């Protein structure tokens, strides 16, 4: 069964609207991540978290907020969505820590279209 689950799978939003992308993991990993994937850019890190209550900015955090209310859940929030945020978003959990090279476990992605 899928250990990292994202919802919704697809979302159409209007410019200026609020969008929340949800992620749930059953891996019991401390680390969680939000990436976006765009053609020609690969994956780019938006926000990440070390555990419940923590959020950190990644490489492209502008226009996004994150929330980690529990070990299992990590949300990405677009307060005022713009067409430039049309993309595929991936959540991942990671088993890193104590100097151990991390393996990431990805969800199936959310395709967001902002009109």
């Amino acid at each position: 069964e899928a250990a990292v689950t994202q919802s919704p799978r697809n979302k159409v939003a209007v410019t200026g609207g609020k969008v929340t992308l949800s992620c749930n993991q059953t891996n019991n990993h401390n680390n969680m991540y939000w990436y976006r994937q765009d053609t020609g850019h690969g994956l780019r890190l938006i926000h990440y978290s070390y555990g419940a209550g923590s959020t950190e900015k990644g490489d492209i955090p502008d226009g996004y907020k994150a929330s980690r209310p529990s070990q299992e859940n990590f949300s990405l929030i677009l307060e005022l969505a713009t067409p430039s945020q049309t993309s595929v978003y991936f959540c991942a959990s990671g088993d890193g820590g104590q100097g151990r090279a991390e393996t990431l476990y990805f969800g199936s992605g959310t395709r967001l279209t902002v009109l």
Partner: protein
Amino acid sequence: TQTVSQSDAHVTVFEGDSVELRCNYSYGGSIYLSWYIQHHGRGLQFLLKYYSGNPVVQGVNGFEAEFSKSDSSFHLRKASVHWSDSAVYFCAVSYTGYQNFYFGKGTSLTVIP
């Protein structure tokens, strides 16, 4: 600037051929390298990783990769590909082991049956 480069955007081979997908990174310090595979419409899945020891690492489904410090490379290889290996392959580099993985732009592998 810490970067990872995958020089080939597309690679096409026939089933049974060998393949090498190239990955080069910048930076000379401690480094962690991984390869991930993405089938169409799916999330990324881990293939293999290197952080120390034997520079040749084995992964799932017959894939292996070799780390070269002198060439700043971590190329992925498979001796005999199957049509189901058709996917996009991403090289990822971290300089801390976690948090900031930098992903290459991906190489799309097409295997012709």
